[in-house]
């Protein structure tokens, strides 16, 4: 996804002289083409994210289209006050991009994990939270976000994510993509965990005769309330899965909506537990550790459907 990001930003910069990419001293060679073609539209702000975020806010208030890019914890919690005050309070249309989100950097330990960002940003007014799941969805929401006038946080993966929806069918901000049709349970998959949800739906169908629909979600905030309500009518159960803490995550957001609307549908919300992961490993290992891998989704879906049958 980060290569797609670099290529798309390079193309967009050539079309939009107001676009400026601010980087926190990462992406070695990743932005060489941008630096070559539009040198005034790239700035390495150094390892100083608090300043970088406020600089971006100042640029946005002066009419530019700044994008701030670094590893997710450093473009979110590291400079949270600068986001809250400079970007959100001023309604300054900065696009904040966090790379290597969730458990992408499982091997780097919890300093580089980001499992709290939805919870934090959901409580901050004015700012959208986007979760593209593959390169085409990233290209689409990025183009929509830059120049939109709305402060936006985009949480992306690392590299090697495979395309789940071809570019020509990629959907924009707030729209969902159905990648498996089903009728028993609906799996709402947030961001880059998509392949696990799809693998789980395939296993549910082939091994257990359960028909699971998979809906890919690219927007955590604002929540599509109408969509949640309509899904609750079509399915016997809902399952949400996200590479984020269950505390304050997308699943809680959906559950709160259902509860407040008096909609009674069994729901299970998969996310990371309320703990730091002290061991290292691959992203797949970390997903298994937190029970958000395909096998765990299968188990949880079966449990939820048996609850629905009671």
């Amino acid at each position, binding site marked *: 996804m980060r290569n797609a990001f670099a290529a798309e930003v390079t193309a967009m910069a050539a079309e939009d*002289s*107001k676009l*400026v990419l601010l980087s926190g001293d990462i992406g070695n060679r990743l932005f060489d083409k941008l630096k070559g073609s539009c040198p*005034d*539209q790239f*700035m390495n*702000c*150094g390892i*100083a994210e*608090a*300043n*970088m*975020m*406020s*600089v*971006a*806010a*100042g*640029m*946005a*208030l*002066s*009419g*530019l289209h*700044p994008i701030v890019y670094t590893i997710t914890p450093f473009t979110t919690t590291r400079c949270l*006050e*600068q986001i809250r*005050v*400079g970007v959100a*309070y*001023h*309604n300054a249309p900065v696009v904040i991009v966090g790379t290597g989100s969730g458990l992408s950097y499982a091997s780097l330990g919890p300093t580089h994990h980001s499992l709290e960002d939805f919870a934090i940003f959901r409580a901050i007014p004015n700012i959208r939270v986007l979760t593209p799941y593959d390169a085409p969805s990233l290209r689409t929401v990025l183009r929509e976000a830059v120049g939109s006038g709305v402060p936006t946080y985009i949480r992306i993966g690392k590299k090697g994510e495979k395309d789940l929806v071809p570019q020509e069918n990629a959907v924009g901000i707030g729209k969902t993509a159905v990648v498996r049709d089903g009728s028993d349970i609906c799996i709402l998959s947030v961001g880059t965990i998509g392949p696990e949800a799809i693998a789980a739906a395939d296993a549910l169908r082939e091994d257990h005769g359960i028909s699971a629909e998979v809906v890919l979600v690219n927007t955590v905030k604002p929540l599509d309330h109408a969509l949640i309500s309509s899904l609750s009518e079509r399915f016997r159960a809902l399952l949400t899965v996200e590479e984020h803490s269950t505390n304050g995550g997308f699943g809680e957001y959906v559950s709160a909506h259902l509860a407040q609307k008096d909609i009674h549908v069994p729901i299970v919300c998969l996310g990371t537990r309320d703990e730091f992961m002290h061991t290292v490993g691959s992203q797949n290992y970390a997903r298994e550790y937190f029970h958000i891998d395909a096998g765990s989704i299968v188990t949880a879906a079966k449990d939820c459907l048996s609850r629905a049958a009671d």
Partner: protein
Amino acid sequence: MPEAPIQHDLASLNSIAQTLRHRIIKTSHESGTPHLGSCLSCLDLLVFFYWQLVNIDPKNPTDPARDRFILSKGHAAPALFQVLAERGFFERSALDGYGENGSLFGEHPPTPNALPGIEAATGSLGHGLPMGLGMALASRISGTPYSVYAVLSDGECNEGSNWEAALLAAAQKVSNLTIAIDYNKWQATGRSNEVLGLAPLADKWRAFGWCVTEIDGHSFQEMADAVAKNSDDPRPKAIIANTVKGRGVSFMEDDNNWHYRIPTAEEVDLAAKELGIEP
């Protein structure tokens, strides 16, 4: 060669400053708004910037080519509001009901969308300079020439974000950015050179690659000279303005109780006499 200092009508600036000092003190008494000491120490700087330096049209406050002024020490907003009203960004009557429920005017500046003339909603320290740096860089990137000015407090220099901004401004040779540090030697609970190791403040900014001038922060002539002398310097500029907290009222000067104290009606009258304001 430094240019000859611009000739200023210093008497008129002094007169404006004394009038505004009185209004700030009176408003503090009426509304219960604190930070009088902080307002009075930076007021002369604000008057200099708004009447002598900053290229702005109060009738066109969002002109893309305007200069930007940021009061980074947002707790001196009571001073900024009086300056903006006197400069014509809004009617003085807008300040009626200061601090009351529903008023825009309180202890800190609201956002630019909420009030004409405001460039940044400061109040949380350490945001104004980095945001101003972004505005100064935007001038260069967009090819729209303008200057950015910010007034910081000495206590505010505790915040690390300022030093991050200082590093980037030097690396990017941001020559259209000027800050003035209201060096009144106090912060909320103690001497600013004792709470953290602030001194030598001018040397710190110099070491960060800035063009630094140290002046008397209550001398309009020294402000004018500092600006004129360095106008062609390619570096970002820092004016270390030595000031007196509570300046202009003998019983407030250099007394840090006035960081929070609200003056009584008698104290407002006493201050008015000292400031030469007719009752």
